[in-house]
């Protein structure tokens, strides 16, 4: 909430009117005011807090998914393992894949995007802060729902890809695990779609003046592309999941061969989503690498426009390759050849990126900090994964590799060696901005090298195992296959990874909190997020900056001489000092959207619907629970739609403009919930965001919303203070 530093000078009629209007809004509880403490986190709509929540939750799921991986590796360490039964193994590997993809990489990337994109583009928040909160809570509840399956009769065990009719004919996979998978993924899909719309609109519409799209940091660009992919791909898996749900619970025939249903339809729908999904998983990490390398090489990203366009090309071509997951299904040589070719095409923009990264490093003044090590590690590991991917593109070789451990090696090289490495790099890079302290460098290097060694020990041998014929998704193998040696190596590698993660946790939770605070720009970096204090104030920028070029912040600090060497500008020290003091002045409240409890209520309602659907299958009366859940969602949405995004209290400090008046009591009618697909997300989103929500949102600019901000510099000698965000209610 904005600082309330001075007593109100004028309480205008408009202020009173708005106060009265606010009383009209439906709200059975007082609207939360505080941004502090536990409830401050629960009710937050601040993109920074939500970013931290996303990333922290994703990290917890990373630990859980990692534990599942260790169980897998223990089971497979030797022939005829006894650690897990076949059914348990199926649950563990299904949950491992589902977790890592939907509960780790996607939310972790979105967490960083949430935190950093508004800062990078010079905005005060995302376009729809309450929907942002709603996305997070729906994600959390979806993850909890999915994992609760372990105690409610067994986790999903049909693989993360859930092929029908194995999953659709209830006799094949007894139990409710697959239903937990279906509804869990539907919840996660709603969260992702809503979040994606939010980020897309934010990036397109809320950039600072002067920041044309080709002056925008590359991470924000890659976020834009991946979130657009999300927006268009999620509905497809939503439909697939609904069809599966109807087959399982209501006796429809979509994937029932006896009725003429075609299991290949599931594969098409799933992979139509699934392939863009893998680019959703990798593009943000590519953006992260593209941010890190220039800072630690002290050179601009080589070929920035080309990097942007190859990212777009990857996103675009990514829609044309999905059948390469189905080469062995029997679609015939025409389909297979066509998709072989298109898959090879996509290697081109990817390769372009790799060359540009190398060129970025070339001739740079390299600082091998941990962030840089992970970024370079990404380049090497992802290249290896990409090369095995090229062998998959060729359908004859793919015919041998498919369904073997060679594929497992491929996607772990690109997803772990790629995405996870990139995300860890981002942690080291941005930790000082988010928390004000640097992660310990020594421990960081231990983390990196243990990860690097462990990772390659785990997944390198899988190429060999695959070519030796070890199938995927088997819970054990016989002695006579002679697969034991490399499996044992892989298991050892997995435990080294686990050790590395422990080092990171120790670093983050124990060592780093005791280190010194750092300033706004500890890395001497390039982009706008480094021009504000660490951690940033709630409103991000005291003044929304005007941007004049790519890497505008860098160009305020440096220029180049005729030989192309970096030269510090005379203002260098001032610029960096100004970053630390880039806070709103005393008496200049910056208006930010108020916390709200409706997003979490709406998310909770979705959770209730999901449980009702599970229980309803046992006994029809239980579907009433889903109805109750729908009512909760509806209530949450109505409350959300009718409450102003800014509370009128701040009016006291805005003598002329009445931001809450614009939004107060005016909301778009709430759409009803009641459907679980992307449709609901849309109804929620578009139906709910009250004009006041975005209206006032990036406070203090443009017509009628946001607080007044007086220019800084009028009190030349005054010591600026960071406004404390104290709740006032």
């Amino acid at each position: 909430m904005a600082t309330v530093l001075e007593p109100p000078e004028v309480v205008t009629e408009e202020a009173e009117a708005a106060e009265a209007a606010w009383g009209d809004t439906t709200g059975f509880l007082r609207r939360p005011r505080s941004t502090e403490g536990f409830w401050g986190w629960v009710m937050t709509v601040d993109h920074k807090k939500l970013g931290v929540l996303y990333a922290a939750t994703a990290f917890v799921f990373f630990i859980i998914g990692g534990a599942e991986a260790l169980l897998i590796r223990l089971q497979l360490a030797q022939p005829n393992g006894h650690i897990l039964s076949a059914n348990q193994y199926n649950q563990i590997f299904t949950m491992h894949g589902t977790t890592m993809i939907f509960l780790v990489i996607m939310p972790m990337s979105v967490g960083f995007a949430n935190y950093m994109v508004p800062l990078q583009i010079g905005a005060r928040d995302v376009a729809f802060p309450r929907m942002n909160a709603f996305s997070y809570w729906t994600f959390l509840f979806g993850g909890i729902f999915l994992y609760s399956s372990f105690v409610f009769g067994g986790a999903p065990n049909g693989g993360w890809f859930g092929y029908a009719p194995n999953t659709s004919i209830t006799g094949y996979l007894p139990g409710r695990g697959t239903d937990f998978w279906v509804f869990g993924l539907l919840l996660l899909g709603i969260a992702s779609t809503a979040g994606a719309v939010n980020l897309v609109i934010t990036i397109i519409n809320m950039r600072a003046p002067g920041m044309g799209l080709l002056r925008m940091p590359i991470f924000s660009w890659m976020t834009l592309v991946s979130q657009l992919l999300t927006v268009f791909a999620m509905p497809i898996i939503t439909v697939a999941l609904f069809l599966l749900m109807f087959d399982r619970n209501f006796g429809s025939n979509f994937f029932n061969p006896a009725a003429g249903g075609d299991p290949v339809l599931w594969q098409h729908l799933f992979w139509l989503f699934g392939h863009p999904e893998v680019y959703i998983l990798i593009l943000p990490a590519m953006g992260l690498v593209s941010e890190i390398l220039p800072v630690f090489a002290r050179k601009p990203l080589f070929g920035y426009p080309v990097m942007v366009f190859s990212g777009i090309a990857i996103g675009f071509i990514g829609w044309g390759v999905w059948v390469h997951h189905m080469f062995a299904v029997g679609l015939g040589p025409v389909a297979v050849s066509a998709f072989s070719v298109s898959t090879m095409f996509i290697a081109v923009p990817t390769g372009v990126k790799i060359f540009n990264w190398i060129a970025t490093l070339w001739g740079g003044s390299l600082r091998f900090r941990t962030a840089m090590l992970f970024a370079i590690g990404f380049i090497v590991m992802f290249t290896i994964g990409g090369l095995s991917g090229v062998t998959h593109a060729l359908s004859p070789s793919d015919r041998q590799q498919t369904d073997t451990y060679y594929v497992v090696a491929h996607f772990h090289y690109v997803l772990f060696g790629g995405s996870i490495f990139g995300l860890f790099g981002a942690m080291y890079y941005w930790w000082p901005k988010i928390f004000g302290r640097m992660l310990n460098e020594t421990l960081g290097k231990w983390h990196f090298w243990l990860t690097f060694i462990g990772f390659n020990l785990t997944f390198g041998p899988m190429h060999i195992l695959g070519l030796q014929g070890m199938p995927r998704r088997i819970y054990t193998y016989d002695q006579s296959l002679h697969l034991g040696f490399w499996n044992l190596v892989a298991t050892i590698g997995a435990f080294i990874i686990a050790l590395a993660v422990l080092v990171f946790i120790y670093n983050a939770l124990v060592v780093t909190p005791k280190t010194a605070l750092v300033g706004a720009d500890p890395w001497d970096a390039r982009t706008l997020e480094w021009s504000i204090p660490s951690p940033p104030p709630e409103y991000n920028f005291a003044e929304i900056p005007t941007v004049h070029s790519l890497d505008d912040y860098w160009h305020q600090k440096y220029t180049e001489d005729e030989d192309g060497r970096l030269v510090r500008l005379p203002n260098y020290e001032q610029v960096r000092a100004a970053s630390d003091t880039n806070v709103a002045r005393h008496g200049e409240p910056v208006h930010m959207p108020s916390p709200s409890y409706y997003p979490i209520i709406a998310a909770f309602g979705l959770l209730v619907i999901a449980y009702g659907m599970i229980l309803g299958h046992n006994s029809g009366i239980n579907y009433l629970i889903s109805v109750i859940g729908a009512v909760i969602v509806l209530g949450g949405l109505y409350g959300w739609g009718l409450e102003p995004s800014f509370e009128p209290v701040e009016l006291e400090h805005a003598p002329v403009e009445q931001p809450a008046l614009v939004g107060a009591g005016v909301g778009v009618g709430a759409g009803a919930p009641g459907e679980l697909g992307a449709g609901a997300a849309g109804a929620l989103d578009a139906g709910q965001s009250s004009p006041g929500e975005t209206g006032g949102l990036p406070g203090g600019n443009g017509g009628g919303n946001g607080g007044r901000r007086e220019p800084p510099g009028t009190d030349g000698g005054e010591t600026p203070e960071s406004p404390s965000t104290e709740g006032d209610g």
Partner: protein
Amino acid sequence: MTDVTEQPSQETPPEQPSQEAAPEQPAPPQQPVPPEQHPGPPGAVGIRHHPSDAQYMLIALILAIVTGVEVLVYYIKGLGDAGNPILIILAATKFIIVVSFFMHLRFDNKLLRRVFITGIVLALVVYVIVFLSLGVFTSSHGVHG
């Protein structure tokens, strides 16, 4: 996305280019202009063409007629599958009319058109490919060798 229009010269130097950001507004001295006071057609800043009520009804009449033609085509015996392209064209016509005029896409910012068309074209392309691979357009033998 800044207060370019609200505080033009509280400090040096005034920034001329950014003041042109909202040319329709009267230059506000120290205060932003609440949206109610913006000049121009209410609720529609910028160049917007609004068909009149009568024109909307005419469009609706056209849509009704096209629907009628579609039904007629359906009922013409003996057309069989040859009627399909006609039906698709008629449906596409209605689709485009509603999107262009009722949804105002014809008159709106091109970005909106691009976003929507991306969705449609993407859907058409990928689903047609699915049909091709599952033998929808070949009649009896399905996927050929």
